[in-house]
Structure formats: structure tokens, C-alpha cells
């Protein structure tokens, strides 16, 4: 994978440009009773950036994503998304504002097919009420077909045509993760949160996922924040890295900067990735 990155640079691709700050995490702390999951963490993410959040297990990475999602409410500090500050937010509002996410333990809807799972990602864009759907005429029918069309593009993009009609519970793990990514993409998010999207995958699957992540960022300009343990992936595809340990941020910067940061090496016991 480092070869791919190297070849890109040497081929003289344009320098990556980023927009304004899309998400600003300011001094956020979260505790559950006596357990302090996050302690005064601050960082930001700019538009079109790919930010990796890394750290040993239990560092608070998933808690951070949960805060951004509105699933956890910070006890201190603020989170500002697209200029709007919010702290106590209902979880579904994150989706409304344009944040989509995948989960560590694949949270797909097991009773439904791949296609249906992806269609649920379009839920917020579907406006017709249940009565029209019951009659399946006019606006309801049109809307269903429109969204089906959009979802098919995602299916094509992720190369999952063959498993469209299979209930996701029966799919292998790597495929499920891909479907989950598809569901997140179906929502056309501004900010995509990926919680260990490569976990449990073999080399080929990882390469595919990396390709998808990079393509999403490239083609749609989606800002991406991902939690990842595979250092090779982190170093190769992220623009910046934030390192958490025991709930605190201990480093932030480009992959190279972070790699050589002594605090990070201490916390992590550097993993060789060459």
C-alpha cells in the first residue's frame, strides 16, 4: 500500500486542497459515572480531508465518533458542525445535518436484503407518506424508483451487484462491511464517520476498501473521519492523524509527523508497516 501512495506522489498529482473547518471539537469531555472516556479533546476536520483517529484500545476513539453523532452527549466542551454549535443533540439530527457512519460491529439490518439496507440510507430523502406508499401510485412510486436508481449507482461503485437481493445476515463479514459503507454513502453525507472499516479483512479486501474510501473522497468530495488500527492504511490514505490515549489527545499532525512523535511511540509501541 505504501507503494501506491509513493507512486501517486511521484506521478505529480495535484496537491490536495481542503476547505473550511467542517467539524470543530472543542475541549470535549465525556464520562460515564466514574469512567472518563474523553478528557478535554480538541481538534478539527476540514472539508474534503481524510482524518484518521488512532490510539490503543479503550482510548476513546469510538466514544469520540459517538459524540460527533450525537449519541453521547459531552459533559463539557462543544462540538461545532458546519458552523452550528451543539452539545445535547438527538441522534437522528446528526443524520439530518449530513453525518453518516459505519460501526465497529457492523450494524446492518439483518432481516433485510442488501438493496433494502442501502435504501434505508435514503430514508431522509424520501418524503411521501405511508398512505401514498400503501397505494403505490404517483409520487410514491416515482420516488421509490428514483431512489432505487441512485442506490444502484452506489451498488455499481462498490461492486456489490451480485449480492443485491441476499439478506445481509448471510453475507461474509467483509461484504457486510462494504454494504454498510454503501448504506452510509446512500445518505449523501457531508461527513462520513468510519469506525474500523477494515477490521477483520484480508489484504485484498483492505485494498478494495481503501480504494473505495479514496474514491469517495475524490469523486464526491466527502469529508472522512476514520478510526483504524492498521497503521499501513492510516499512513497511506489519511491527510492528518489525531492520536488518543486514555481519553486524551496526545498528538496531531500529518502521518509522518505523528509517526515520529515520541509520545505516540510510547503509547503505541510503534507497529512496523513496511
Amino acid at each position, binding site marked *: 500500500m505504501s507503494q501506491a501512495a509513493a507512486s501517486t506522489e511521484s506521478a505529480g498529482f495535484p496537491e490536495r486542497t481542503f476547505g473550511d473547518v467542517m467539524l470543530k471539537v472543542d475541549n470535549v469531555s465525556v464520562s460515564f459515572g466514574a469512567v472518563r472516556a474523553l478528557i478535554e479533546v480538541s481538534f478539527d476536520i476540514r472539508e474534503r480531508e481524510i482524518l484518521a483517529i488512532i490510539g490503543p484500545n479503550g482510548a476513546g476513539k469510538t466514544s469520540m465518533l459517538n459524540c460527533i*453523532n450525537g*449519541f453521547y452527549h459531552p459533559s463539557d466542551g462543544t462540538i461545532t458542525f458546519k458552523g452550528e454549535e451543539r452539545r445535547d443533540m438527538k*441522534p*437522528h439530527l*446528526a*443524520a*439530518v445535518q449530513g453525518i*453518516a*457512519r459505519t*460501526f465497529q460491529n457492523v*450494524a*446492518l*439490518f*439483518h*432481516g*433485510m436484503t442488501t438493496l*433494502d439496507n442501502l*435504501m*434505508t*440510507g*435514503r*430514508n*431522509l430523502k*424520501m418524503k*411521501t407518506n*405511508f398512505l401514498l*406508499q*400503501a*397505494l*403505490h401510485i404517483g409520487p*410514491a*412510486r416515482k420516488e*421509490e*424508483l428514483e431512489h*432505487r*436508481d441512485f442506490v*444502484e449507482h452506489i451498488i455499481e461503485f462498490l461492486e456489490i451487484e451480485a449480492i443485491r437481493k441476499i439478506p445481509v445476515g448471510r453475507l461474509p463479514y467483509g461484504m457486510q462491511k462494504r454494504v454498510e459503507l454503501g*448504506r452510509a454513502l446512500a*445518505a449523501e453525507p457531508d461527513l462520513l464517520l468510519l469506525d474500523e472499516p477494515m477490521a477483520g479483512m484480508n489484504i485484498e479486501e483492505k485494498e478494495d476498501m481503501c480504494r473505495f474510501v479514496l474514491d469517495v473522497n475524490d469523486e464526491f468530495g466527502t469529508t472522512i473521519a476514520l478510526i483504524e488500527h492498521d497503521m499501513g492504511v492510516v499512513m497511506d490514505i489519511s491527510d492528518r492523524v489525531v492520536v488518543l490515549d486514555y481519553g486524551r489527545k496526545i498528538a496531531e499532525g500529518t502521518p509522518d509527523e505523528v509517526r515520529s512523535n515520541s509520545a505516540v511511540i510510547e503509547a503505541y509501541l510503534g507497529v512496523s508497516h513496511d
Partner: protein
Amino acid sequence: MIYREAGQIKTSYAADQAIFPITQDRWFIGAMLIIAFIMIPLVGNEYFFQAIMIPVLIYSLAAIGLNILTGYCGQVSLGTGGFMAVGAVSCYKLMTGFPELNLIVVLLLSGFVTAAVGMIFGIPSLRIKGFYLAVATLAAQFFLSWLFNKVPWFVNYTPSGTITAPPREVLGVIMTGPYATSLSRYFFCLIVVCVFALLAKNMARGSVGRAWMAIRDMDIAAQLIGFRPFQVKLLAFSISSFYIGVAGAMMFALWLGAVETAEAFDINLSFQVLFMVIIGGLGSIAGSFMGAAFIVLMPILLTNVMVGGMGMQAVTAKHIEIIIFGSLIILTLIIEPNGMARLWQIAKEKLRLWPFPH
């Protein structure tokens, strides 16, 4: 070789999303409709309609209603009997209070009333998860049973507590009351149930149905995608109560003609409908029909075998029937939690490959 998908290429999403995309399925449904609309009326007799076809249709409607709530949305309800009672009593009050109202309008209004009542009981409990709804619906069951029994206004102050459906016509054919023929009642039920089943199926495969299933499967993830669990569950509960209310009204006006609410709509009915949904298949409209047919036909079959064939006492046969049903529930859940509908699907899949084994 007979039943296969090969060669049936869909050229549009619309075709792919049709209710019965496979041609053979369409023939099958067509055949079923012909049997239901033409053949049965030709060969059926009074007993057949009154004891089998009409109850199967009405129970199917109730089962579809419960399936929407429990099968698609994953919320257990034990109050179906009580809500059917609401439908029946509303129907009675409307029929006696507003004699000029069309029967169809009365049925629909009964459904709305039941949906409203359902919302009252649902609102407190849909905000939390687990079996709380089961307890709330039990509350509804017992309270409503008591209410219709104790408050004479509901039965128009009839001393016996029994409500009787006055005669009404639809399109010139008399449908309720002592002179309505079982054939006309059968047709009416058949049409109503087919329409409602179609509506339910459309909802189930639209975004509404997906929302229900998302909440059922993983409501945290559903929330983070943008679904609002409370609204989704409440909608399921309302639509479900509507269907169940209409079924209750039909049970009163078009099947039994006269009911004593505490007896006819007790907690056993709630269990019966729940069993229909479980055995027929959670989350399947077709399964609701299968489950209803099963629950109606099985006791008849068992009684004939046990009392008629083996000379058992009726009481003992009833007890054995209870055991068999309980065991069937457990077996269904162990072997095929998706019930008869799934077994049917598996059979179809095997047919697709026939004569090859796999």
C-alpha cells in the same frame, strides 16, 4: 424445471420491484384468486363459509395487523383481543347511532377509533424498548375488557350485555343481520381483505416498511441514520390497531352477528392471533394468511381426529389441543422462526432447482 427464474430478465427497476416479479408466482396468485372468487363460491356450502372461509379471512386481517407491529416492527402486543373489541363496539355504536352510514364507512371509522385508542396505550410504552409494550398491551386488554363489560353505554344498555348487528346493505345486497347470506358476506370479506392486504404489502416494501424493519433489527443504528424510533413505532402501532379494529368490527358484524364482548374478545384471542403471526411467519403478509388458516383449521381437524376418530372426550381433546399449539409455537421458533411463509419460500427455492438437488 417448471419453476425457475432463468430467462426472466427485468429491464426496468419497476419490473424488478413488482410484488410478484417471477412469472410463475403471478400464475400462482392468479390461480388463488380464481379459486377464491369463482370456484369456492360455486362449490362451497353454508358451513364452509361460516365456519372456515369467513373466519380465516377475518383472522388474516387481524394477523396482518399484528404482523405489522410484531413481525415488521418487532414490538410484541398481547392486546389484540381488546383492540378487536374496540373495533366491534365502535362498529355497533356507529351502526345503531347513525343508521344511514354505509357499512364500509362504518368499518373504516371503527378502524380509526381503534387506532386512536391504540395510540393512547402505545404512547407511554413505545418510548422504551423490550417487553414493556407487552405489559402495556396487557393493560389495554384487561382494561378494555372490563370497560365494555361494566359501562352499559357501550352496549346501548342491553341487559344481557350482548351487542347485535342491525341489518345493513351494501350495493343493494344485505350484508349484516339475520338475513344476510353467508355467500354475500364471504364475498364482502374477501374483497375487503384483499384490498387491505394489498395496501399492507405496498407499505411493507416501501420506505415505511423499511423503517419498521430497521427499528426492529437495530434501532440504535436506525436512529443514527435518521429514523426516529418513537414516530416509526407509533405509526406501526396505529396502522396495526386500525387493521385489528376493522377485523374486530368485521368479526362482529359479518361473522358472528352478535357477541358478548368479554367472552369473544378475551386474552385467548390475543394469544390466538399472536400464534397465527408466529406460525405463519413474522414479517410476512402471505404468512398471515397461512397462519390464520392454520389456526382455524387445525382445531377442526384435531377435534375430528381425537373426538370423532379416537373417541376422546371433548374436554380432554381441548387440553391436548392446547398442548399441541404450545408445542407448535416452540417448534416453529426453534426450527423456522420465520414460520410457514419461510418454509413456503424454501419449497419454492427447491422447486426452482428441481429436478436437481442443489
